[in-house]
C-alpha cells in the first residue's frame, strides 16, 4: 500500500492540507483514507503535559541570580536612590515602633517558640506561624492575631479571642490547638470550652474537651480525639483524616523544603503522624502508605503517584 505514495511527502502534504483537489479526491476514495484520518484526528486531540511557564520562569530566575553575565550591566537607577529609600524605611520603622505597643512573634522553618502573654497565658507556636497582640490594653482586651499552627493555654479571665484569616475562636479559659491554612481552618479543644466562628461571624461550633472541628473548602467536619496536649509539642505532628495539602504544608514548614505536587491528588486524606527529628523517616511515614513515591533534589521534593 505504501507504494501508492510514490512521493515521500504525500501524507505530510495531506496532513498540512497541501494536496491538490484531484490528489485529495483520489486519496479520500482509497480504502486507507479512513484509517489515516482517524490517526490524524486522534493525534490532534492529544495534549502534552501541562507546562507551568510562570513557575518555571521563577525557578529560572532563582538559578540565574547566582550566575554572572559576560556583559557589563549598566545601572539605570543611581545608587544614592537606594540610600534615600533605606533611610525612609528606617525612619518609618522607628516611627511605627514608637507609636505602637503591639508585639509580634514569628517562627521560621522548623522553629518552635513559646510565648507568654501578659496574663501568663501561654502560646506554643509551631513552625512557620505568626502571632501579634496589643500589650498596652491586654488585660481588658485579650485579642490575638494569628496564622499557622499553635497550641493555646489560656488563663481564666475576660474573653480571649484568636482572630485568623479563616475564622475566630473565643474562649474563657482553656487549652486548644489552632491550624490555619489556605481554605483550611482547624480547631481542637484540649480542655474547657471554646466557641469557633467564621469571618462573617456565623457560629460554627462550640467545642468541649476532646472535640475538634475543621473547615476545609467551606465544608465542615467534626470529630473526637483523645490527647492531653497536641503531639507536635513533643516532636511529632499528627493528623486525623487531614487533606494531603495541609499535611504537605506542615512538612514544608517543618523541614524547609518545597514539594512539587503537580501529579498527585491533594484532596486525599491522611491519618497518621510524622517525626520532627528525621526528614527521611517523615517522608517515608507520610507518603509510603499513600502509595506516592518521592525524589529529592536540593530543596525540592518531587512527588509522584505510583499508578
Amino acid at each position, binding site marked *: 500500500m505504501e507504494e501508492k505514495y510514490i512521493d515521500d511527502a504525500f501524507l*505530510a502534504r495531506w496532513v498540512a492540507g497541501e494536496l491538490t483537489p484531484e490528489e485529495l479526491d483520489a486519496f479520500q476514495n482509497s480504502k486507507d483514507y479512513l484509517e489515516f484520518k482517524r490517526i490524524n484526528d486522534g493525534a490532534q486531540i492529544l495534549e*502534552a503535559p501541562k507546562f507551568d511557564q510562570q513557575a518555571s520562569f521563577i525557578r529560572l530566575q532563582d538559578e540565574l541570580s547566582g550566575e554572572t553575565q559576560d556583559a557589563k550591566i549598566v545601572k539605570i537607577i543611581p545608587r544614592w536612590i537606594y540610600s534615600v529609600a533605606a533611610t525612609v524605611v528606617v525612619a518609618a520603622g522607628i516611627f511605627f515602633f514608637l507609636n505602637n505597643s503591639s508585639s509580634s512573634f514569628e517562627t521560621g522553618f522548623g522553629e518552635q517558640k513559646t510565648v507568654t502573654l501578659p496574663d501568663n497565658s501561654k502560646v506554643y507556636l509551631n513552625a512557620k506561624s505568626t502571632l501579634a497582640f496589643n500589650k498596652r490594653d491586654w488585660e481588658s482586651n485579650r485579642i490575638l492575631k494569628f496564622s499557622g499552627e499553635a497550641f493555646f493555654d489560656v488563663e481564666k479571665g475576660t474573653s480571649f479571642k484568636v482572630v485568623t484569616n479563616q475564622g475566630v475562636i473565643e474562649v474563657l479559659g482553656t487549652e486548644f490547638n489552632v491550624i490555619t491554612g489556605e481554605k483550611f481552618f482547624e480547631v481542637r479543644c484540649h480542655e474547657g470550652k471554646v466557641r469557633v466562628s467564621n469571618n462573617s461571624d456565623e457560629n460554627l461550633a462550640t467545642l468541649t474537651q476532646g472535640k475538634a472541628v475543621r473547615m476545609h473548602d467551606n465544608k465542615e467536619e467534626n470529630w473526637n480525639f483523645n490527647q492531653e496536649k497536641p503531639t507536635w509539642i513533643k516532636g511529632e505532628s499528627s493528623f486525623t483524616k487531614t487533606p494531603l495539602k495541609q499535611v504537605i504544608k506542615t512538612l514544608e514548614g517543618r523541614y524547609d523544603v518545597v514539594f512539587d505536587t503537580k501529579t498527585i491528588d491533594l484532596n486525599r486524606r491522611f491519618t497518621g503522624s510524622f517525626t520532627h527529628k528525621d526528614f527521611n523517616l517523615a517522608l517515608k511515614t507520610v507518603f509510603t502508605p499513600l502509595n506516592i513515591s518521592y525524589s529529592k533534589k536540593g530543596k525540592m521534593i518531587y512527588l509522584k503517584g505510583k499508578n
Partner: protein
Amino acid sequence: MPLDTKSVCDKKVFESIYNDHSKTLRNFIYYKCGDVQQAEDVVQEAFIKLWKNCAKVFVEKAKSFLYTVANNTFLNEVAHKKVVLQHQKSIKNNSTSETPEFILEEKEFMMKLKNAIADLPEKQREVFLLSRIDNKKYSEIAEITGITIKAVEKRMSQALIVLRKKIGKI
C-alpha cells in the same frame, strides 16, 4: 550593518524570549525522552547558558542557540530510556451524545495510538508531535530539528505509515 539595540542581556528581552520559546522547547525535549522533569531541567539549563552568553548571542539567533544547546544537553546527559509519553488526561471532548460502546472503543483506540506514538523512532516522533500537538509548520520544525523541510515531510509521512501499520484495522 544595522545597529540592533535589543540585547539578550536586557531582562525584558530575555523574558520575552523565554515566553516565546520555553514551552515548545520543553515539549520538543519531552517528545524525545518522555520525562517531564528531565525535559524541564534541560530547558532551564539552556536558558541559563543563554543568559551567561547573552553578550555573544544576537536576539534573532537566540532561538537556534536554545535548541542547539538543549539538543546537545539532551544527547550528552539524558540516558535513553524507553519512552513513556504521558499525555494529559483531559482529552478534549469534541463529540457529544456517544453510546457507551463508542466511548469505550474510542478510549481503546486512543490507548493504542498513544502506545504506537511512544514506540515510534525518536526522529519520527518529535516531528509528528511537534506538528500535531504544537501545531508547528514543517518549516519551523525543520528549523527546530536542524534538518531540511523535505526531510521533515518525509519523517512525517513515515510516522503516519508506521502508526497505521501498528494500529492496524479499526
